[in-house]
């Protein structure tokens, strides 16, 4: 099912809304968020991206968005070392 999430990318200046399939792996959120943002952060510019939920819990990149508990309207953070 398509759901909307709010992604906050490290070093970006605003949260952005993205539409995702809740069956896709959590790990894909990082590249999708960067790709949907302005052309300032080329895709895959973050190495070993860490994706956390609002509570700061590290999410398993292999788990699906649905299984990770990211429901419609949830927010997530993408951090890690920038390449």
């Amino acid at each position, binding site marked *: 099912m398509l759901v909307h999430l709010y992604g906050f990318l490290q070093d*970006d*200046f605003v*949260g*952005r809304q993205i539409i995702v399939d809740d069956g896709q792996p959590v790990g894909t959120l990082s590249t999708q968020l960067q790709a949907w*943002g302005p*052309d300032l952060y080329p895709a895959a510019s973050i190495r070993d991206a860490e994706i956390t939920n609002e509570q700061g819990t590290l999410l398993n990149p292999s788990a699906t968005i649905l299984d990770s508990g990211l429901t419609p309207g949830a927010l997530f953070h993408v951090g890690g070392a920038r390449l």
Partner: protein
Amino acid sequence: MALSRDDWLDLARKVDWSYRYAKEEELFPETMSGSPWFTHDQAWADWSEVYRTAFSEYVRNQANKDLSVLAVRDALSKSALNEHLDDGWLQLVKFHQGAFALAEYAAVAAELRMCRFGRDSAWRVMANLGALDEIRHTQIPLLLGHDLLGLDDNFDWTHKAFHTNNFLMIAARHFFEDTFAAANAIDMAVQLNFVLETGFTNLQFMALAAMANRANHHVFEKALASIQTDEARHAQIGHPVLRTLIEQGAREYAQYLVDKAWWRSWRILIATTGTAMEYLTPVTARTRSFKEFTEEWVVQQFMRNLEEFDLDLPWFWDQFLGELDYAHHSLQLVFYTYRPMLWFDEPIPSSSERAWLRQKYPGWAETYEPIWDRIEEAWKLHGEAASLGYALPALCSLCQLPAVFVQPGANTACTLSFDGSTYLFCSEPCRWIFEQQSQRFSDHQTVLDRVLAGEAPSDMPGLLRWMGHEQPAAAGKDLRRGLDSWRVAPVPPA
């Protein structure tokens, strides 16, 4: 023998009737007059303003003020000085006029509500004059905006903006409606008169007037300063209402109204004043930074006002002080990268503007300058399109503004589950305000909610038209670079 002013003034401003045919609570129902509800004899009979004005005095003063503004307008129109105004400054004026002209007209209805449902006659008389003030505050910007149409068609947003679905105007309307247009007399007196007008309008009108003087926009300077003298008079409604609440044991509710209105006012001022002062005002016209103006003209005065009433600083005070260094800089990046959604143009800061920002905000160079560098580089490599944002920014369910990172590395966004839905907020104070009156706020949809519900177009060109922007003419562009040439070139025949 002519009566002296003291002999007749109270007859002109403070005459209360004893009601014989209807009950007081029927004439002043709690829904409209506000809570907590006290009888006039119990709580409101001693209501008094500091600067007392009769209608005849008001008319004379206002006529002189209007003559003064119009004289400057006439003199300057003959010398065509508007044509020599700084390009960035013109955008600031366009922004200000669109954001505030018709909001002032909404305030007419608000003042008239107090004029009918305020609990003492002196309060009602003051509100009557306040309503006349707000009509004037609508008419002057409309007149000046019309004068500037010859320079830029988008000055029609002076009249148009308030009626559009532009995301900034939705945010502004949400604030104005909550704070006064859809508030009862007590809530409005504290939120509009005490907090917004006493606390913040110095910044919007006096600080901006000082900058207008240095930017050689003297008719705008005269208009702003003239408007602020009205604000200072009718803003005094707030003090005696707040004092009555506290004396009658409603201190906790008074504190709530002050805290709520402070945060909401701050949020809208970041957007309308913070960004414009720091990024659209020519460097030569700047005297102080937005942060310095706020510290001196807003923070100090507000703290004195709170001390007068023995109220506490709002619970989020430290967060507010922290935001002075960051919030408007983050929001400016949103404005720039989503400029097609604005009715005014935005610049990438020039070298002299960057030097000012580095001097006034020690953290700016480390946090924000690299982002501006990357935007410039992206434009150089890939053209205008690479400097724009495409995924829609996350919008706060309370203030309706983009959920910006207000401190480097510290995202303040948060969510709340209510009635089966998840709501996003830019900050804890916005979430707190929503929680206090969830039923009041939960039905309001952000632009994103409307897109998801199919009520607004999901494609960017369609969404921009829905917001009122015919592309590319009626949309913001880079102030100095304009548009890529292909965007304005004629479409070649097939």
